[in-house]
C-alpha cells in the first residue's frame, strides 16, 4: 500500500515538471511511432552535427582545380555526394544545413501553434460565456485571413527572415487547434469525472489542467505535428516564391533554386528530389509520432 500511495498521488501532485515529463513520455510501444521518432532523431542529429556532416560551405560557389565552375555535377561526380547546383554549390551540404532551418522553423512554429491553440481552446471551452464568444470571434477573424498571402505581406513589411513564417503561423494558425480543442473541451467538461472533481473540491484551474488538458494533449500534439509540416511547407512556398531569406539555406530555397534553374528539364533529380523527400519525411514523422501519443494517452484504444 505505501508504495502504491507514493507512486501515483505523488505524480498527480508532482507539479508542472512531472506532468510535462509524463506528457513527453515517448511512444515506444508502437512500431510506426518508433519509426517516426527515428526520423526525428536522424534529422535532429543531422541538424546538430551539420558542421561535421557537410562537405562544403552550402553557399560557397565551387570551382574545379582548373578554375572552371563546378556546376551541374551528377551525384558522386568529382566527390560531390549529391552533385552540385547550376551555380556550383554542393547539394549535400545544402541538404544538411537545410535540416537546421527546417527543424528550427518547424519546432518553434509547432510549439507556438499548439500552445496558443490549446490555451485558447481550453479557456474558451471550459469557461464559456463571453470569454468563449470573444475568443471564437477572434478565431473567425483568423479564419478569414488567407494564410499564404498573409505571410507574403508580412515578409514584405518585415525583413526577409525565416521567423516571419513562425510569426505568421502563431498569429493565424492557432485557429484550427483552438476550435478543435474547444469542441473537445465542451464535451469533456460535461464528463462525470469533471463533475466528480468539482464535488470533491477541485478548483477550476485544477480541473482544467489535471482532468481536461491531459485528454486533449494528443490533439495538441497532432496539431503541433501538423504545424511542423505546415511551417516547413510554408517556408518552402515562401522561399519558392522568392520571399525567403536568400542568406539562409533551407529545403525551400533549394527547391526554388532548382526550379529557377530548370532542374526538371535537365533531369537533375538529385537536386530537387532529396529536399522534397526530406520535407515529406519530417511531415510524415510528425503524424506517426502523434498517432503513438494518442495510444499512450488513451490506454483503452489498445486493449
Amino acid at each position, binding site marked *: 500500500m505505501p508504495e502504491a*500511495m507514493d507512486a501515483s498521488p505523488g505524480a498527480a501532485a508532482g507539479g508542472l515538471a512531472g506532468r510535462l515529463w509524463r506528457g513527453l513520455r515517448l511512444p515506444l510501444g508502437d512500431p510506426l511511432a518508433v519509426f517516426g521518432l527515428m526520423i526525428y532523431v536522424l534529422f535532429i542529429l543531422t541538424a546538430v552535427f551539420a558542421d561535421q556532416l557537410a562537405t562544403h560551405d552550402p553557399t560557397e560557389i565551387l570551382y574545379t582545380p582548373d578554375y572552371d565552375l563546378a556546376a551541374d555535377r551528377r551525384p558522386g561526380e568529382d566527390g560531390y555526394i549529391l552533385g552540385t547546383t547550376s551555380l556550383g554549390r554542393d547539394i549535400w551540404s545544402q541538404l544538411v544545413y537545410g535540416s537546421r532551418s527546417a527543424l528550427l522553423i518547424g519546432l518553434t512554429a509547432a510549439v507556438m501553434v499548439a500552445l496558443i491553440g490549446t490555451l485558447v481552446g481550453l479557456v474558451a471551452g471550459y469557461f464559456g460565456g463571453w470569454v468563449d464568444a470573444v475568443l471564437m470571434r477572434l478565431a473567425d477573424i483568423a479564419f478569414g485571413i488567407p494564410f499564404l498571402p498573409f505571410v507574403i505581406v508580412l515578409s514584405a513589411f518585415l525583413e526577409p527572415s525565416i521567423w516571419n513564417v513562425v510569426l505568421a503561423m502563431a498569429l493565424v494558425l492557432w485557429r484550427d487547434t483552438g476550435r478543435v480543442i474547444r469542441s473537445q473541451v465542451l464535451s469533456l467538461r460535461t464528463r462525470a469525472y469533471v463533475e466528480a472533481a468539482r464535488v470533491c473540491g477541485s478548483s477550476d484551474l485544477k480541473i482544467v489542467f489535471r482532468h481536461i488538458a491531459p485528454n486533449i494533449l494528443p490533439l495538441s500534439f497532432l496539431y503541433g505535428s501538423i504545424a511542423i509540416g505546415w511551417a516547413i511547407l510554408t517556408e518552402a512556398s515562401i522561399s519558392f516564391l522568392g520571399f525567403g531569406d536568400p542568406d539562409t539555406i533551407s529545403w525551400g530555397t533549394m527547391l526554388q533554386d532548382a526550379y529557377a534553374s530548370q532542374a526538371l528539364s535537365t533531369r537533375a533529380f538529385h537536386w530537387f528530389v532529396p529536399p522534397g523527400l526530406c520535407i515529406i519525411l519530417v511531415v510524415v514523422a510528425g503524424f506517426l509520432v502523434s498517432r503513438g501519443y494518442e495510444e499512450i494517452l488513451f490506454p483503452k484504444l489498445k486493449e
Partner: protein
Amino acid sequence: MSGPRAGVPLIEAEDVAMHFRVGSALSALVGGRPALVRAVDGVSLTLMRGESVGLLGESGCGKTTMGRLLLRLLRPSAGRIRFDGEDIAALSGAGLRRFRARAQMIFQNPFEALNPRFTIAAALAEPLENAGIPRAEWAGRIERAMELVRLPDPGQFLARRPHQLSGGQLQRVVMARALLLDPDFVVADEPVSMLDVSVRAGVLNVFREVRARLGLTAIYISHDLALVRYVCERTVVMYLGRVVEDGPTEAMIEDPLHPYTRALVAAVPTPDPDQSHAPLPIGRGAPDARNPPSGCRFRDRCPLAHDRCAAEAPRPTRIGARTVYCHLHG
C-alpha cells in the same frame, strides 16, 4: 437516525427553481422568447440530520437536477438552499471548500465518474489534497474508506486504473471517494442503475450500512420505487419539476395519496397475485418540461383530473406525516 442532533434540519431548500434556456441566443432573438425548460420549478425540501430521503420520479422530472442543485453543481434560478444554516449560493473560497468536503455525491455511472487516466490511488488522493489533509494521513484514511465500502485488500486496487476494475468495484471506489472526508451529506444519483443486476444488492447493502454507521444525511435519487423502499425511510415523489407527494416510504406504498404515486406503486411488479392496488391507468404522453400544463402538472395524464386541476396549482396538504400536492385531498 437518532443521533444527538437528530431533529435538526441539515438542508433546507425553499421554493427552488432551475430553468434552463434552450437554443442559442440567436434563435431566441429571431423567435422572440427563448424556450425555457423548467427542470425544477418551485421545490421545497427539508432534510433532517441523519435522514435518508428517496427522490423518486421518471426521467426528466428534475430529480437529478435537484440533487445537483443541493450540491451547488448548479446555481438555482430562484429560491434558496441552506446547508447547516448557511446559504450555499453565497459560499466562496474557504467556505465553499468546507462545504465541498461536507457534501458529496455518488455518481450514476461509475465507469465515467473516475478519470480513466488516474490510478485509483490518485483518484482517491484528490479530495484529500483539496481538503488540505496532511499527506501522512492519506494512506490511513484511504484504507478506512475502502474498508467501509467492503473492498477487501485495497492494496491490489490502488495502482490500477478504472478500466481494470469491474462495475461493482468501481462503484465502491466512487463511494469510498465520497466518504474519505467524512461528509455529512451524500447525494446518490441512481448509484446502481449502471451496474449488473448481480452486484446491485451488494452495492446497495454497502450504501445502507455505511449510511447507518456514519449517520449520513442522504438523498437517494431513483426511478425505482423498490430500491428507494430498500434504502430510504422517507420518499419525495417528483413530477415535471414539482413535488407531488412527500412522506414515509412504507406509508406511501401502503396507501399512495397522489394519483401519480398510485400509478408508480401499481407499476412495481409484485409476486402477490392479489395485489391490493388496482393499477391506475395513466396517460402515456411523455411530459414536456418546456410547455407544462397549467394548474396541476399531472392533470393531462391524470384519470381523476377535474376542472379545478387546470385552473390552479394544488397547494401542499398535510395528511399525518405526509404532504401531498393534489386537489383530491385539498
